[in-house]
């Protein structure tokens, strides 16, 4: 690989939901300006893992995270860390598009407003336009920025959510099965977009579709029962996996 800078490094990560342990000693490196795909059967801990990276698990009362995740060598599993600043750096796109029930413009401008990124209206207009352009949505919505974001089609909603994530200028974008609620055409558009975005952002994508992992990612990690089984370049994982379980999974023998 030409790119060797590690952006996110997790080591010995253990996560419990109450009595139940969801992740076991996960060690995983995520490289800068690359797309890393996480695959694995349902309930294997992929989503739990990426929700640790922006500390979204804090929302769940019974969730306990132990171990270490560093971003640019800065520890983030730390009670005293201000998660707000962290989440400004790390955007997230969810499984189901969840635009706010507000106008398209307000959906994008919300993040910059709370983080104080725009001095005035012109700045904000610029941010909104740029974010929508980067999310490849600008041309479709530029004439109806004041209409409700919830009125868009599913694929457009998801790109709106991506634009929303981009609007605060993050370094990393986490995507939790972003295409699972979308039709194939919308999926293709999002995948195209991901390809474009990896030039400026580090992307971690959880996906159920192995073909999608092959299409968009440079690196793939395989999770099973809360453990990371194998991580390598996507090419290697899908052509010549080192582990029998990975082999079985990608050839569809279980999962």
């Amino acid at each position, binding site marked *: 690989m030409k790119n060797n800078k590690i952006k996110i490094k997790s080591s010995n990560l253990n996560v419990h939901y109450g009595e139940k342990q969801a992740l076991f000693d996960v060690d995983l490196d995520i490289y800068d300006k690359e797309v890393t795909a996480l695959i694995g059967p349902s309930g294997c801990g992929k989503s739990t893992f990426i929700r640790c990276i922006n500390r979204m698990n804090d929302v769940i009362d019974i969730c306990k995270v132990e171990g270490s995740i560093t971003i640019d060598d800065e520890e983030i599993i730390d009670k005293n860390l201000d998660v707000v*600043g962290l989440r400004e750096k790390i955007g997230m796109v969810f499984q189901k598009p969840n635009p706010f029930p507000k106008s398209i413009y307000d959906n994008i401008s919300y993040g910059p407003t*709370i983080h104080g990124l725009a001095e005035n209206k012109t700045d904000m207009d610029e941010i909104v336009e740029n974010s929508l352009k980067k999310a490849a949505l600008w041309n479709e919505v530029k004439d109806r920025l004041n209409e409700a974001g919830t009125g868009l089609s599913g694929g457009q909603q998801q790109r709106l959510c991506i634009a929303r994530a981009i609007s605060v200028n993050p370094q990393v974008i986490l995507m939790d099965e972003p295409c699972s609620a979308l039709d194939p055409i919308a999926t293709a558009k999002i995948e195209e977009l991901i390809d474009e975005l990896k030039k400026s952002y580090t992307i971690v994508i959880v996906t159920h579709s192995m073909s999608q992992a092959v299409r968009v990612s440079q690196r793939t990690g395989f999770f099973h029962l809360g453990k990371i089984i194998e991580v390598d370049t996507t090419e290697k994982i899908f052509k010549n996996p080192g582990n029998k379980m990975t082999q079985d999974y990608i050839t569809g023998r279980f999962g």
Partner: protein
Amino acid sequence: MNKEQRLKKRHNAEKRFKLYGLTSILLAIFFVIFLLNAIFSKGSGAFLKTTIDVEVNFDADTLELSESPPLEDLENTDYYELAIDSILKVKKVNGLTEEKLLINLFSPDYEYEIRNFLLDNPKALNQTTVLKLTASDDFDQLHKGNYPRELPEERRRINNFQLNLYDELVNEGKVNKIFNSYLFTKGDSRNPELAGIGGALVGSFFTIVITLLLSFPIAIAASVYLEEFAPKNKITDFIEININNLAAVPSIVFGLLGLGILLGTFHLPRSTPLVAGITLALMTLPRIIIPCRASLKAVPPSIREGALAIGASKVQSVTHHVLPLAIPGTLSGTIIGLAQALGETAPLILIGMVAFVVDIPSIPTDPSASLPVQVYLWSEQAERGFVEKTSATIMVLLSFLITLNFIAVYLRQKFERKW
């Protein structure tokens, strides 16, 4: 019993069962109609009052006024003589007893009615005008057909002489029914024809505003805390148990609370909308918190996650997204809670709102009645006229409640969101 018979029997049982259900619903609906009909048929009369035409000659000399007197003089001079003279001219009667009987056709306020007319129309001085003076309660009821005139004379308060007077006046067209403005503008009175719900309306208004101002913000804050921030621990559980229990505590117990703490310990003024408002706010609070929490719960978690994921803090995600989305639901819950508070009587009786208050309160710390308490007070009165007044008060009260409930339903339907 063969198969067919058995089947037939079963189908009959089925029909019977269904009939029970239908009958129950029809019975319940019948009760609603019967109740409302009983109230409305009795109460609608109170919106009209009976008057008797009296010719009044506002002679400046009789009134001991100058030719163009200042307003104070008009207000302060004695109208009694003029009033009596005018009334006695309505019908020719002989002797003091008969004069008194004639005067008794009128409500004792005739003097003030004449004065008020002149105060409103100072130009009427030295002119003769026909005034519609309010008839006394008995004749008001007689004219509305609610008085048992067929009873033997010794069992009626109206004697035969008065009945004759009345009949003659009716034949001359001098007895009329006009809109009863007193009902809405006057305070309580011992005379039914002069009693109004003005004081009770203002009292209820103050009370409900205080209840709203106290209960709504606290209910929102408490529900937001419990739904969004509260950790799962013993304190939170205890708060929740308390809220659920308080919602089912009988209202009279809140009256005892108001009496014991607000009046007994804090020495707040008795019989006032202030105390009533606080008492009802405490009673309404848990009843509002429950629907408020439900509408907060109805906001899907994905909205919260969306906000958190772009770095909104918990407070920001709640104040910017969750709360605005839940507000219509909380409002409709609050309005329904307030409607209940508006109709509440028992706690107000205990904090002394049953005092006889003639004046219309001007601030929330003036002694006052409220609409439901007025219903209670008048229902205890013996005079026939109060039955009609009570029913009319109920009609006013119900119309407020219906309006409030419609607003609540409208809010819920307009802003209801399917996620």
